[in-house]
């Protein structure tokens, strides 16, 4: 464990970190409070530096997202992709397969479903077409997700690098499609594809942008993934592989099969989130930055914040959707740069990781007279 020695006057001080034997609920609660307090403090400091009253800004953020009916509508809308993606990431991360590429898996889901909708949409009924849309989106995300899994088990390539890099590939691919071969003729030169056929668009709750089919899918899939992880043989094997690859080998668990499966799942549900964004919000494919407001990256945080439990990540997904919406609010009302909200996300993740460390380790200080 990390060790540090330093001298203070005539004293020799050594600091070590030891693994905690037990984690009491009290300690967990205290850590969570400390994390939130430290996080708010750091964010507040950042606001101060920007010349804004921190309390006012924080108030704006949370009032903007959770303080009004309009705020709630937007928060839920932005929560939909987060619910789906972070549920899938929980599965991958429990196997310690570090999928950083949910952003591109979302995009590929969007691409495939757009293709399906434009090519075959007219000839299928909504009852068949919408499920097929989601199925095709799932396949698109899953296939994109399986590439890094295969690169890892075949060639030993780090999945962190490959999933991260495939994000750029997918984003450029989408940009190419919308300015090139898929550019819509009815779009007055804008880089959009044609709209999907009307009967394939997802219905929204009146007066909102909440595409309820995807929202329901988010809840149901999170529940299913929870059951998958904690109640099935497959979930058990995923957790054993993640916690101890050696024990998994000893127990005869097939690593290749497990790695490929978790990437099919996490890539696939990210792809479904892409379907929701295309068929529920935009109705066509457009720039990657329009299709996804960095949902694939934010979901990494929400999965961790939810303790890698798909149900827990529903809550953290809602919270972070709120921050996204609140970020838009302060951008408008306080004229702060759009990146401010990313600062918020980053700081929270840092503090959270620190808190996790404290939860698992305790400091041991020795002071000796020299």
């Amino acid at each position, binding site marked *: 464990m990390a060790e540090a020695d330093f001298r203070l006057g005539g004293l020799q001080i050594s600091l070590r970190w030891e693994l905690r034997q037990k984690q009491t609920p009290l300690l967990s609660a205290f850590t969570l409070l400390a994390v939130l307090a430290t996080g708010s403090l750091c964010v507040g400091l950042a606001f101060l530096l920007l010349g804004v009253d921190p309390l006012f800004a924080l108030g704006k953020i949370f009032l903007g997202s959770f303080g009004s009916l309009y705020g709630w509508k937007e928060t839920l809308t932005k929560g939909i992709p987060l619910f789906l993606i972070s549920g899938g990431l929980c599965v991958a991360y429990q196997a310690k397969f570090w999928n950083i590429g949910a952003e591109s898996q979302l995009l590929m889901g969007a691409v495939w479903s757009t293709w399906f909708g434009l090519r075959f949409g007219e000839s299928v009924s909504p009852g068949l077409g919408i499920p097929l849309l989601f199925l095709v989106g799932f396949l698109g995300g899953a296939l994109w997700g399986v590439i890094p899994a295969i690169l890892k088990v075949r060639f030993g390539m780090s999945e962190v690098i490959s999933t991260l890099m495939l994000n750029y590939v997918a984003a450029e691919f989408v940009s190419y499609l919308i300015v090139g071969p898929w550019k819509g003729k009815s779009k007055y030169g804008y880089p959009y594809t044609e709209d999907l056929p009307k009967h394939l668009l997802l219905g929204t709750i009146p007066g909102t942008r909440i595409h309820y089919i995807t929202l329901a899918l988010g809840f149901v899939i999170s529940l299913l993934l929870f059951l998958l992880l904690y109640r099935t*043989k*497959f979930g058990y*094997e995923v*957790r054993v592989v993640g*916690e101890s690859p050696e*024990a998994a*080998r*000893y*127990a*005869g668990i097939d690593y290749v099969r497990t790695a490929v499966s978790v990437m099919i799942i996490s890539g696939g549900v990210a792809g479904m989130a892409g379907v929701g964004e295309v068929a529920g919000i935009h109705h066509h494919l457009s720039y990657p930055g329009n299709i996804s407001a960095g949902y694939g990256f934010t979901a990494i945080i929400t999965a961790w914040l939810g303790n890698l439990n798909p149900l827990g990540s529903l809550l953290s997904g809602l919270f972070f959707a709120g921050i996204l919406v609140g970020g838009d609010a302060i951008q408008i009302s306080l004229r702060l740069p759009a990146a401010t909200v990313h600062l918020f996300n980053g700081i929270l993740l840092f503090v959270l990781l620190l808190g996790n460390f404290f939860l698992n380790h305790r400091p041991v200080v020795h002071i000796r007279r020299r």
Partner: protein
Amino acid sequence: MAGKNFPKKIQIVRMEKISKYFQGVPANRDIDLTIRGGEILGLLGENGAGKTTLMNILYGLYRPDGGRILIDGKEVTFRSPRDAIRSGIGMVHQHFMLVQNHTVVENIVLGDGEAPFFFPQRVVERKLLQFQERYGLKVPPWAKVWQLSAGEQQRVEIVKALMQGADLLILDEPTSVLTPLEASELFSILRRMASEGHGVVIISHKLEEILDLCHRVVVLRKGEVVGEAETRAVTKEELARMMVGRSVVFSFDWKPAPKGEVVLQVEGVSVRSDRGILAVKQVDLTVHRREIVGIAGVAGNGQRELVEAITGLRKVESGRIRILGKDITNQSARVIHAEGVAHIPEERIRFGTVPNLLIYENAVLKRHHFAPFSDVLFLDYGKIKSHTEDLLEHYTVAAPSIRVPMKHLSGGNIQKLIVGREVSAGPALLLASHPTYGLDVGATEYIRKQLLKRREEGEAVLLVSEDLEEILELCDRIAVMFEGQIVGTLDREEATVERIGLLMGGVRGNG
């Protein structure tokens, strides 16, 4: 390098009352050791005897909890290997610490403080050639390290240490990765170094090489010095007895029993180690019902690879393995388990359990995919939990509850749970690797009794252990492994500590 022409070498290194504890467990206790310049000293002992710890202390890797080190009468404290190197002490570890993708010269430049900042390679190459001439240390300067054989890499390490000004060179198990020819080349290099006034310490468990190479030998056992001798005045048998020690007291009630049909049959099996060299060479082995067969030997002589081959964790290069007549060679671990091979693994915490999962989740590891613990898709936690409660009761595992993470259990209780888990599956063969290593007396006795019980119930047990006491107490037959081969198989009646000790040290024949 000016001083090197008139070498003033270390005359004498004294380690006095050196003690070192790891989490309260003594690795070295009050050890006194003297090393003289111009002498080759052998440090002999089984694995875990404390040899490497002692030398790591001298090399500055560990700080001793007690005792002091004197070089030529002056007390020294080493805070890191850098201090030790500055005082003229060098060490070549068992696993080489070289950058594989760099050339030999680049690797040496890394450790050479005197090399010029710009273009140091030529200077180092010149020095390298000097050493080559002086000691016969042949290394290709511009080859990448990964292209070199183990023997060549070792020579690079030695040259590196010498260039850093090592007067005293420590080598940890230097011949474990060498071919016999490479070993004899190494010995002649070391002899030449000693004749020039260098001190050399060899850590080894091989009796013949100690007697062949060293002037003096110090024997360690369980962290203490148990013997010291001039090699001229000592025999292999005496050294073997010092190394394994104690006469065995039989405390279990062991009754002779007629052995039954063949359960495990290993025929001409060869297996490669992680490094790709043959670690198991043409091994034959049979285990019958109502029999415990022991595999004795110092760790690292192929036992681990053999066990992994039998349990499906490692590929068999050639040969056949059969369980109850059925060929299971190179089947997956899952299939072999289903054929009735249970395995108490060597590293019980890393392999046998998942520390962060709960006890009941650990209690069905390997069996989670069988009825009654699961159906096609879902696990049956009700059955899993009641099975776990049964295990805790039957195998006297002390646990606060079945709902705590496995890591909260003590080593003995972890092992009891693993034994219970493996035995309760009703296997045809129980394969136990170092099952009592590091356990307290109570747990040790309990686990040994469980192994005997398997035998009494008419089942087959293969026991791999370094603990001779355990082997002699429990086994019907004892096979001794040395350098990947079974160098002798003794029946219980003819097995003595001396005979096994000699075989473990690589001395063949019926000496």
